[in-house]
């Protein structure tokens, strides 16, 4: 059996959804060891076991920025146990740890994978390129431990392991000048349905014309109990907070219905939402790329279509 390790970060003190997605996949590839970053809790360990972890290495870095000490500790553990593969999620701290770890071990690191397989003992990853229109398969020569970063929502998160995981605390080394500290944490208010969970998402782009017009997106979301999303163009412009960004550098979503209003459909936006079950697009440019993947494309002005749509839904 292949020896598969998964890096799992805590989210609200429990294993993150992304981590559980990776565990679900890892289980199908071999025996699973988790490196868990977060406060120690029985509930977290139970959940990890339910998702297939047999062994849990647990690290709590407190207020240190995790990357340097965790990468150093992991390098030691990997040297000792030589797992075949370590899976990380394509998210913040995962990327920081994986990047430092790869440089430390001198092994390459494959980013942005949407799938990972073991073929005759080698690791083969799939990467969506050019906005998901093409798939590249990558392999890495050499037989050391392979490191892969996997995009969120690449696999479903399903419990199914039977193991009661054994837990081991990791000693974190002093990294001297390579360390950094978190001096304050700011959590932004989250209200209403969240992008990661909602069955319906309504997203707006620069075609709305002004920050005020984003209100149309919010009003449309209400009767649909939808989460609201945005393109990077309007996040960078300061119309809405980053937490709403969908796409390559934002969230990856797969709702039942995705409504894109005034969104051109740039490659980097499409990778984050093209796997939605049904896509509805409203754009005044009949040639907008978003229409290439829309199940229903409306060539029209958001300022006339959205108000009528809102009214029709509100009056039901």
């Amino acid at each position, binding site marked *: 059996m292949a020896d598969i390790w998964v890096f799992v970060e805590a*989210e609200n003190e429990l294993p993150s959804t992304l981590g559980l997605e990776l565990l679900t996949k890892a289980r199908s590839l071999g025996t699973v060891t988790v490196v868990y970053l977060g406060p120690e809790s029985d509930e977290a360990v139970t959940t990890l076991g339910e998702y297939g972890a047999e062994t849990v290495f647990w690290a709590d870095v407190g207020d240190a*920025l995790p*990357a*340097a000490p965790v990468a150093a500790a992991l390098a030691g553990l990997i040297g000792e146990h030589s797992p075949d593969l370590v899976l990380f999620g394509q998210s*913040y701290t995962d*990327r*920081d740890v*994986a*990047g*430092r770890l*790869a*440089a430390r071990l*001198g*092994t*390459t*690191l*494959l*980013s*942005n994978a949407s799938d990972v397989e073991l073929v005759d003992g080698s690791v083969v990853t799939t990467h*969506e*390129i050019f906005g*998901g*229109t*093409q*798939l*590249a*398969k*990558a*392999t890495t020569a*050499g037989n050391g431990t392979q490191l892969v*970063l996997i995009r969120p929502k690449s696999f479903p998160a399903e419990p199914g392991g039977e193991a009661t995981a054994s837990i081991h605390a990791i000693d974190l080394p002093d990294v001297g*000048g*390579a360390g*950094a*500290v*978190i*001096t304050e*944490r700011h959590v*932004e208010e989250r209200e209403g349905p969240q992008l990661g969970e909602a069955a*319906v998402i309504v997203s707006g782009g620069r075609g709305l014309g002004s920050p005020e017009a984003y209100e149309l997106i919010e009003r449309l979301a209400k*009767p649909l109990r939808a989460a609201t999303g945005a393109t990077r163009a309007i996040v*960078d412009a300061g119309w809405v907070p*980053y937490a709403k960004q969908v796409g*390559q*550098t934002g969230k990856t979503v797969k709702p*039942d*219905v995705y*409504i894109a209003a005034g969104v051109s459909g740039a490659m980097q936006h499409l990778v984050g939402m093209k796997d939605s079950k049904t896509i509805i697009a409203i754009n005044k440019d*009949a040639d907008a790329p978003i*229409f290439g993947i*829309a*199940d*229903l*494309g*409306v*060539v029209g002005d958001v300022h006339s*279509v959205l108000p009528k749509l809102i009214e*029709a*839904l509100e009056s*039901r």
Partner: protein
Amino acid sequence: MQVVVCVKQIPDPAGTYELDPETHFLVRPAEQVLDDTDRYGVEMGLQLAQASDGTVTLVSMGPTGSMQGIRQALAMGADKAVIVDDDGLKGADALLTARVLAAAIAAEGFDLVIAGTESTDGYSGVLPQMLAELLDVPALTYATSVKTGDGSVTIHRQTASGYDVVEASLPAVVAVTAGVVEPRYPTFKGIMDAKKKPVDTLTVGDLGVDVAMAQTVSAVEDAPEREAGAKIEDEGDAHLRIVELLEQKKVI
């Protein structure tokens, strides 16, 4: 303060990208532009250097070509550029790129290295972290604001739920997000001055980096295509079609 900004020249994103059918490497035309995301790093570097009477050196790996992208960054105000251009680096993976950039940066000397969060054409998004490990300094990543002072650097680090304030002592690597500052447009004088600024071109031999690379792309295939559905022109009643579809999908 000696600031190094990592910048990349990329094929114009407005055009179509092509892969070499044999190596699967991205085809890079002689005429490449500055990666738009790097303009934020350059601007950040210029502001921090200005505040400390420092200098900004650009470091870039890749084919020099017409140097249009590098000139763009020099025209914004950077003092000089170092380009590592070597045929052996074609298709370099993230780790090899990091080893090359780290060697060039170490040779230049630095207090602060600034990179982007991810490049437009490669988007591995791990370069800054690798660089930091190789240089044995902290990597402050996903920065939406950067301040330096008194031998230290403080950033706002974007997180899934908001942001953290993170502090470290210099030297350090900072990876900035788009939007961290508003990049300036080069002035006419800037563009003229850029032509006279020093540009060093190095090979891997100059840096003593071994170009061994483990990663290969074995195949590229078309993804299963998502069929586009109906496209209708709004004549005042398109919203009804949307309502109909929402009903069909049972979300209302």
